[in-house]
């Protein structure tokens, strides 16, 4: 079983990222759970969302404490949230940033493997809004293969209708541009 934690700010669509990941996994015949960090929702405040993906039925209702993968939608969170908390040694932190993995490691002292992409720029150019939730799914898939891009197509269409194609384009561009540490 794989666990993923998304960090975003209220209104940035982190919960949607988690949902789309779970829906793609289910579309692939896998088992999945997606859920927000339950609480009063506030626009702009740091929020989290969680996903579990497994080949077998998932039988736990615990919170996610040690996610294998962490996705950070908003680079301004890196200064105020310990996004590495609970991540096991072989875990990966996937960050929306203009910095290289080496620069990011140096400035914030990360211990886990990093994957980076400038999702904000991609989102603004492709979607014309600085909302990175679907763009960062491309980075997640590049770094982890947790679901396939193909499986994401159906859930994206259902969720976004006429703008699904553009979201998929942003996702694919992030997939191409994501740099994953060796």
């Amino acid at each position: 079983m794989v666990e993923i934690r998304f960090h975003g700010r209220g209104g940035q669509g982190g919960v949607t990222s988690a949902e789309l990941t779970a829906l793609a996994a289910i579309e692939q015949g896998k088992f999945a759970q997606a859920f927000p960090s339950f609480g009063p929702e506030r626009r702009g405040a740091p929020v989290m969302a969680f996903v579990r993906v497994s080949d077998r039925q998932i039988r736990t209702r615990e919170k996610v404490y040690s996610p294998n993968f962490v996705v950070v939608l908003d680079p301004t969170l890196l200064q105020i949230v310990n996004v590495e908390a609970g991540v096991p040694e072989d875990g990966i932190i996937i960050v929306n940033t203009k910095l290289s993995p080496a620069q990011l490691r140096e400035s914030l002292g990360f211990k886990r493997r990093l994957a980076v992409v400038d999702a904000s720029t991609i989102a603004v150019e492709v979607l014309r809004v600085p909302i990175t939730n679907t763009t960062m799914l491309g980075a997640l898939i590049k770094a982890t293969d947790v679901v396939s891009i193909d499986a994401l197509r159906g859930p994206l269409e259902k969720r976004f209708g006429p703008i699904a194609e553009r979201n998929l384009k942003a996702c694919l561009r992030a997939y191409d541009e994501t740099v994953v540490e060796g």
Partner: protein
Amino acid sequence: MGKRVGMEVSIAAAEVVGLCDVDVIAAYPITPQTHIVEHLSELVAEGHLDAEFVPVESEHSAMSTCVGAAAAGARTFTSTSSQGYALMAEICYIASSLRLPIVMAVANRALSAPINIWNDHADMMMSRDTGWIQTVAENGQEVVDLLLHAYRVAEDPRVLLPVIVNLDGFTLSHMIEPIWLPDKEEVDRYLPPYKPKLRLDPRNPMTFGPVGMPEVYTEAKKAQDEAMNGALPVIIEAWGEFEKQFGRAYRPVETYKTDGAEILFLTMGSISETAMTAVDKMRAEGKKVGLVRLRLWRPFPAKELVDVLKRAKAVAVVDRAMAFSTRSGPLCVEVKAALYDHGVSPYVQNFIAGLGGRDVTVEDFEAMAAKTGDGLSKGLPMAYEIVNVRE
């Protein structure tokens, strides 16, 4: 054929209620509400469901609307939680006493104060004696299945009682997971059309809910008690039919790895899944631990429960609500009474866990098992403990 979908549990609940051809849905749309009625309002507004959606001004009015509609012969639905449920309570008693087969989904949440919107079973326990049949779901699939079952049981002429399907708030209501949704033809095959025995009809006037003088009130309550007891075999029969058609089995009391277990956990709701994972882990370590899950809260299946619990040396009852000053949670009080009634006395340890959204983990279950085993082997007095509470 039905289909496997990824869906939020609340949306799936609304979908299956829609497939049940409800006539009237009444709901208060603001917190503490879930997406269940929000999605039903969409289904009605978009013309997918031919029903009256009545957005009322309070939960009290929601249940009042259901009572009126059900008395007129409609198939009805509502949903609520916590404080809203408390406001609705007055009319809940009336619904059951009038023998109206209303179905309600309750996303179980804590009761204030302090203000808390998160999951526990305080609201389920508050409504213990409202006279409704109550089933409890552990995952999204079970919410869908139990809602379908609820209409079949409620409307059965041998039962005619309202039914609540309990699902853990947030932990289930806001969870996206794979669910197998039946199609319309399958639902129609399982659930016959509702044919009310008696209903409000201007052509055949009658009174529902008149005054019950001291000369008749006691008899009315006895009749209600008998109706509740008489519902048990029908509930079991309807689960049997469900299993035949859909292949998924439900029982009033369900077990997991109980063979040879010396310590049995007793749980209700979604923490049962975490408990299964904990039992798997402890079994792999050679510990003789098993799990019993209460599927049916009302009518209380005392005999079925005792038949399972009597095989264990110790029972660890996990409650998710308080019963102040009794040194037992509300579930444990009933378990102890049932054991006493049947002349069985295993070592019973009671844990209060998961209040107001506090997580209950595999590690917590391991600690509870260890404590129960310790108490049993040392012959300590039977204990009551609030798990992980800060003093």
